[in-house]
Structures are given as structure tokens and as C-alpha cells.
């Protein structure tokens, strides 16, 4: 297992040398969405607190670091952490309100949607942040400004972020917090009876999840060179964030990565056609049908199914 992982990692490290610019882009999206998915997974997959407003954290992180960079010439490498902290603060507010008042399930989902929409509407009306038109980053190619003329740099940054998210969420999974999060997902009252401080645990999870997602915002802004409230805070981005971990298998470390390897190329293809116009909807119909198929045929996500398959293989032939 360990050598298989090392081999996969080695392949990913040398891969850019063999990829054309289009495929490079596809891989960057795979890694980046796997990263965002992993950050969501901490709260939604392990903790069972489903957020459909994670774009708010991307947006807050992206706007924070971009504004600081444009106004105060602060390097986005530093702004990234400040943006993460700002997103974590927002996550803390949402979590405090939602969890303090005991909002569960559907109500929590709506609270997150509402906060993301409120952020989107407010930023759309803030002139210093460019209003509805958003912010545009001028390309300088200065690495200190998170800008690179070689796309391979973005590739390695996105890969590094994905691996870091796996390391962080993996560490949480093995810790007391991880065990508590899963217990809360399974039965919150029963977990409280066993000494789990559900409020504090969920709050910690949303703060960490928002922090990681917010850091992703800086990459988002500097890879796309522009920020619009409707896309950076929009529900479609929130939806993209939750799709991958759920399709891959939520509450597992592999889920978001597997889901991203399945969905991101599809999304990227459909996006490319979208830009060309014409029959733009067809690919999203396929995308939507695929989601439906996943639910009907892999109701616990792809990874648990694959794992079950792998376990069954050697046993074949045995009674």
C-alpha cells in the first residue's frame, strides 16, 4: 500500500513534464477541488454538518488576500493566511450561531446558504471591493505576488495543497477530535452522554474547515486573475465543493480525491464547451445524470464501494 502511494506520488510529481497545457489545467482543477472537498469533508463528511455555503469561505479568503495585495502590496503568500483567518472567523460566527441554537440537518444547510448569499450580496455592493464587477489582478509574473508565467508552478502548488489537506484531515481523523466528530455525526445526543462536547467539537471543525477553504481562496483568485462576487460566493461553487467528497465517499480521506479525479475532468470539459457557447447545456445534463447515477448505484460514494470490491477480490472462491 505504502509503495503504491509513493509510486502514485512520484508519477504526479514528474507528470507535468509530459502534459500539454490543457491537461495541466485539468490536473490543477483536480487537485484544487480535491483540496476544497477535503476541507469540506472535515465538517460535512466526518462531522455530518452539511454546509452548502462553503463558497463563502473561498470568497472571503480570496477577497481578503487580493484586497490586501492590491491596496497594501501585501504578498498573497502572507495574505493567504490572513484570508484563511478571516474565513475561519466567518465560520466561527456561522458555527456559533448555528450550533448554539441547535440547528441541525436541513436548518444548518439553509443557514450556510443564507450566509453565503448575504456575503455575495454585500460584496456586490461594496465599491472598494469592485462591486458586482469584482477585482481584476494585473499579471506581473512575480512569484512573490503568487503569479507564475509557468503553469507548472500552479500545478505543484495545487498538488501541495491537496497533500497538505490530506495530512491535516488525516491527523484530525486519527485524533480525539476526529473520533468525536464521527460520533456526533452518528448520534449527537448519545455522544454527549459519553462526554463529547458536541458544540465545541463542531465549532472547531467548522473553524478549521473554513480556514482551509479560505486559504484556497487565494489560489482561486491568483489562478483565475479575477474575482466576481457571483462566482466566488455563488451557490454553484458551493455545489462544486460538496459534489466531489460525496461522490467519492464522504467521511473518508480518499473520497474527495477520488471524487475529484472522477468529476473535475468532466466539469472542466463541460466548462470548456460552456465557454464556446452553443450546446453548452448538454454536458451539464450529462454531469447531472452522472450525479443521479452515483446516488442510485453507489449510495455511499465510490470509495467505500471500491474498497468493498478490493476486499472481496482475494476472498473469491472461498466458501
Amino acid at each position, binding site marked *: 500500500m505504502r509503495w503504491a502511494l509513493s509510486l502514485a506520488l512520484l508519477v504526479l510529481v514528474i507528470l507535468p513534464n509530459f502534459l500539454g497545457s490543457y491537461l495541466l489545467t485539468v490536473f490543477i482543477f483536480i487537485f484544487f477541488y480535491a483540496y476544497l472537498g477535503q476541507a469540506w469533508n472535515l465538517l460535512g463528511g466526518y462531522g455530518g454538518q452539511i454546509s452548502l455555503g462553503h463558497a463563502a469561505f473561498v470568497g472571503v479568503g480570496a477577497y481578503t488576500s487580493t484586497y490586501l495585495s492590491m491596496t497594501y502590496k501585501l504578498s498573497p503568500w502572507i495574505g493567504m493566511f490572513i484570508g484563511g483567518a478571516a474565513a475561519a472567523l466567518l465560520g466561527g460566527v456561522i458555527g456559533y450561531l448555528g450550533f448554539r441554537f441547535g440547528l441541525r440537518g436541513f436548518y444548518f444547510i439553509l443557514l450556510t446558504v443564507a450566509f453565503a448569499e448575504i456575503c455575495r*450580496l454585500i460584496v456586490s455592493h461594496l465599491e472598494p471591493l469592485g462591486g458586482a464587477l469584482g477585482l481584476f489582478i494585473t499579471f506581473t509574473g512575480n512569484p512573490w505576488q503568487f503569479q507564475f508565467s509557468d503553469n507548472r508552478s500552479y500545478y505543484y502548488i495545487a498538488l501541495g495543497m491537496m497533500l497538505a489537506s490530506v495530512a491535516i484531515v488525516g491527523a484530525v481523523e486519527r485524533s480525539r477530535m476526529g473520533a468525536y466528530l464521527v460520533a456526533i455525526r452518528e448520534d449527537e445526543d448519545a455522544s454527549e452522554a459519553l462526554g463529547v462536547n458536541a458544540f465545541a467539537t463542531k465549532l472547531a471543525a467548522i473553524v478549521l474547515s473554513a480556514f482551509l477553504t479560505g486559504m484556497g481562496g487565494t489560489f482561486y483568485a491568483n489562478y483565475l486573475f479575477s474575482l466576481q462576487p457571483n462566482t466566488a460566493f455563488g451557490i454553484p461553487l458551493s455545489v462544486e465543493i460538496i459534489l466531489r467528497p460525496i461522490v467519492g465517499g464522504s467521511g473518508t480521506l480518499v473520497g474527495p480525491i477520488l471524487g475529484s479525479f472522477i468529476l473535475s475532468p468532466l466539469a472542466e470539459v463541460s466548462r470548456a464547451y460552456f465557454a464556446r457557447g452553443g450546446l453548452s447545456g448538454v454536458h451539464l445534463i450529462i454531469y447531472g445524470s452522472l450525479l443521479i447515477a452515483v446516488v442510485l448505484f453507489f449510495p455511499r460514494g465510490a470509495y467505500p464501494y471500491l474498497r468493498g470490491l478490493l476486499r472481496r477480490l482475494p476472498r473469491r472462491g472461498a466458501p
Partner: protein
Amino acid sequence: MNVTLLGQAALNGLLFGGVYSLMAVGLSLIFGVMRVINLAHGDMMVWGSYVAFFLALRLGVDPFVSFLLCAAALFSLGVLVQRGLVNRVLEAPHEMQILLMLGVALVLENLALVIFGPDTRRTESAYGLETVWLGPVFVDVARLMTFVLALAFSLALYLFLFRSDLGRLIRAAADNSYGALVIGADVGRIYTVAFGIGAACVGAAGALMSALVPFSPAAGFAQTVVSFNIVIIGGMGSLLGAFLGGILVAVAESLGAVLLVPSLKELVSFVLLVLILLFRPQGLFGRKTA
């Protein structure tokens, strides 16, 4: 800021509230009976609008007549979605149901995009531009018609749910799915009919609204979100709450558009939602136990 302007805005909101109510009642019914979040609700609405649009364009049927046909068409769509998809995931984890409905929403939205194109449309009605002055304020006849028809549709639904056997079973299922099971009712049929009616409500709402507000395939998700806001504000599981919530939100949005910037009117319903979630999570008209 003068009082007449505010009064006019409140009246416009009130009359627009009928379609909001219908939309929310449909959603509330589906959630109440099946505990499934219909994330395709707004996209179903857009389909209702398109049916009305083409009936008016090709056959010259006024949307204030054709909304019944739209309701019937969407009833069929609802039955299909319930039988073919929703029925299979009733026991699945929460996030899987969400994923399924997101898939349905994506398919419906983009099917509309492929078939009808991205253009914004508005259904022609004979009453489109007529107005009647009522003292200092005027009444937009089309708005008044939508309000009256939405009210009538809701009343018919009320009679069905409270006076017919099947309707009573649906309400029983909405209160407690085990209750209906114990009685030995055909739960599958109840679910199918409930989903169909929920879709019919939003189909009728889409048809009526298409005469007032321009629509496009992309408009669906925003309507889904507004529907959910209304249902939570009114009180989950309370059909009356959904109905009154629809009117309340429409009035609040209409006033918000006048008092704030028009483009910030959506903010009103979200702020209202957050306040409700925090201080009265059972909703304005919901029961405490919910």
C-alpha cells in the same frame, strides 16, 4: 420617502405574494411528507413557466387559463421524478438525497437551456398592461389576477387535503410517516401523489409568475432558495405557515427594494431567514415540537 410609495410597494408585494405562497406550499408538502429536500423545485417552476410561455405563443392561451395545464404537466413530471428517483433514496443518507436532487436540478435546468436557449422570456397575457387606480395607489390587473388565481389554487388544495380521504392520508403522512403506515395506507401512492401535487403547485406558480417577471433557464436555483427561505420563515411542516410566509416575504422584498437598492431586495429574505433560524427556528407559524 413617502407613504404612498411604500403603500404601493406593499400592495405590489402582497399581490405578488400569491405565487410565492403557492411555490412554498408545494415545497412544504413535499418535505413534510417525504423529508426530501426538493432542490429542483425552482427548476420545476421554470418548466412551468415555459409550458405557459409556449401555450401562449403557439396557441394563444392566456397564462391565467393555462396555469391549470401547467399544473397538470408538472404533476406528471413530479410523479416521474418521485417514482423513478426519489422513491429509491428515501432511506439513503441525507447528503445522498441532496446530491440526487442537485442532479435533477442540473438536468432540468440544462435541458431547458438546450431546448429553449438562454434568452429571457416573458409570457404574453391579455391583462399585461392594464391597471386600475384605487385612490392614491394603482392595482396592476395582471398581479391581481395572479394573486386571486394563486389563492383559488391554494384553496382547492386546502379542500383536497382536508376534505378528501387521500388528502387526509397525505396530511397524516406529513405529520408522522409511521402513523400512516400503522393505518395500513398505501404509503407509496401517498408519496407519489404528494410529490406530484407539490410539483403541480410550483408549476402553477411558474405559469402565473411568468406573466409578471421575465424568466430564463438559469432562474431556477434562486427560486429554489427563496422557496426554502419562505418555508423556514413560515414554519416547516405548516402549510398555512408556508402560505402566509410567501406573502410576508414578498411584501418584505418589495419594501426592501424601495427602501434599499432594488438589487438588494434578496438580502431582505436572507436576513429574515437568519433571524428566524436564530430566534424562532420552528418558524412563525410552526409548532414548537418541530
